[in-house]
């Protein structure tokens, strides 16, 4: 192995910025050395803004898109806020990709039920687009996507295009519709969509990502619908300072989110009291 520091980020340039909401934008990045990221859907990169810090962010684009990759960032803290002040042409540092993503080989031939809450759509979109780019390899693709209010919907245009496609099903919901906003779809938390769809538990794998509180309810509802525990795949968030299994922050009991995850099979972690 080379003597290169595992903490040294490589430069990447912002090619495009799509603003979704006040606090969420999609950044399209190209590595300055033009090497493709070679990530798996579900993996993350450590994004550096020098002088500010570093944050783990899921890659939101499919690896089938080779020349560039995308990350969807919500401004909540130092790095993520600073990210939103950057302009096209600015540079960030990238380390990674890190972690264990979705097993695209294993999922081949399976029906996939994507369940995303809020920003959870970001890592799932990578897999969704991967599946769409290899559509023939996979069974049904059902997307359930919920957010707090209509104006918080991310990837709006892409979601609309998903809804128009015949080869996937896409259902949307919002927690509530504030006055003055318009909404044609379901109202209620994302779990309320599950009973409305029809799937075969033996061939279906649910892929879930959302805020911490969402998991417990979604899992319970899925189990009620007869889905086996090992048919549920989750992506988890924890605090991270290194991304490479050293700093200790992302530990869930004995496992490291940055090494063993962020994607887990529910059956692997269900007995870990700190997981959900």
């Amino acid at each position, binding site marked *: *192995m080379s*003597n*290169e*520091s*595992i*903490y*040294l*980020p490589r*430069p990447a340039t912002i090619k495009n910025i799509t603003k979704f909401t006040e606090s969420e934008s999609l950044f399209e990045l190209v590595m*300055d050395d033009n090497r493709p990221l070679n990530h798996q859907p579900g993996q993350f990169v450590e994004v*550096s803004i*020098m*002088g*500010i*810090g*570093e*944050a783990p962010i899921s890659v939101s684009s499919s690896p089938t898109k080779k020349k560039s990759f995308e990350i969807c960032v919500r401004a*909540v*803290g130092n790095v*993520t806020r600073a990210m939103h002040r950057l302009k096209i042409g*600015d*540079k960030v*540092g990238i380390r990674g990709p890190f972690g264990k993503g979705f097993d695209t080989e294993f999922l081949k031939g399976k029906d996939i039920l994507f369940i995303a809450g809020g920003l959870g759509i970001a890592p799932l979109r990578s897999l969704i687009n991967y599946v769409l780019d290899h559509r023939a390899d996979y069974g049904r693709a059902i997307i359930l996507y919920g957010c707090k209010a209509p104006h918080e919907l991310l990837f709006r245009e892409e979601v609309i295009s998903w809804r128009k496609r015949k080869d996937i099903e896409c259902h949307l919901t919002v927690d509530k519709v504030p006055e003055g906003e318009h909404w044609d779809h379901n109202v209620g938390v994302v779990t309320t969509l599950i009973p409305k769809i029809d799937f075969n538990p033996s061939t279906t794998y649910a892929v879930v990502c959302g*805020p*911490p509180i969402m998991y417990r309810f979604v899992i319970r509802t899925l189990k009620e619908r007869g889905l086996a525990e090992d048919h549920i795949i989750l992506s988890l*968030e*924890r*605090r991270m*300072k*290194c991304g*490479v*299994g*050293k*700093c*200790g*922050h992302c*530990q*869930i*009991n*004995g496992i490291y989110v940055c*090494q063993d995850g962020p994607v887990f099979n529910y059956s692997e972690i269900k007995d870990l*009291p*700190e997981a959900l």
Partner: protein
Amino acid sequence: MKLIKKDEFLNFVDSLIKIDPRRVIGVKSKGNKFIFDTLNSANELRLDYDVTILPPKKYFLPPTETLLKYDLTDKFSVEAVNEVTPLIIIGVHPYDLIALQQMDIVFRDTYQDHNYIRKREESILIGVNIQNVSPYSFAGSMGTATTEEGFDLMLTDLGDEYAIEIGSEKGEAILNKYAKIADADGDTINKVHDIKGKIASKFKKQLNFPPEELPKLLEENYDNELWEKNAQKCLSCGSCNLVCPTCYCFDVQDIVELNLRRGKRVRTWDGCLLEDFAKVATGENFREDRAARYRHRFMRKGKYLYDRFGFIACVGCGRCASACLPDIADPCKVFNALKEG
């Protein structure tokens, strides 16, 4: 095995200080305690110490260490930093040598952390067998009171002279270069063997069961009420983490000079007992309860790292026990209490 007269040993150390390009570190006294510190003269060495305030990990994973430096006037100009000062560290006890071997495994696992590894590779460790036992230590029952590896040289006090075990070529080389030594005969070898055999029994504090049982014991006691009970007194001060030779968690921060032109990314020691350790930007704290954090440390020591790497990550040095003001951090006491049920 070699032999060196004590006054020759002092000459040896003084030559290292004066001639060898590496910096010479040794155990010195500080108040009534001991520390690893730069030696100015061999006379400062206190090889009869019981335990040091901080373990030698501070030289390989420094309390604050620069990982990167960068220039903000450029669009992207970042450079990796690895400040390596080659060291000769004299007087490391076996439990600390074993702890360093554990750290080696962690920092070499999957991703090679060269900031740690290079510092380790560039240094020489001269161990010493324990002469005085710290009242807090229970290394005897952790199997860490003596060691056959992990050192470049290993000293045993024989009265007028030290026996020296050679652990590496590097160790042998400095010995040949700077020391007046003799070969040890069979008698001496037996004597050293004897001395080492007796060290473990000098520890008053003992774990009441073999440490191999720890992973299972901890697993079964995840919900033991002892965690909650002890944690009520926990100050969340992290002292137990920071003084531990096998704790390595760190935080990373960017620090920018006042001119906003240059900056550096540094890592500093962190500890899983500190309140914000597992807190994320959205405000969620994944280990919010004192008891959860308190338990986590013991689980790490006796189970989590064992499951991952195959070693018990407590070497029984007792530093945490002596650093913990409410006196709840002592692994020996906690493990024995769990065992008793």
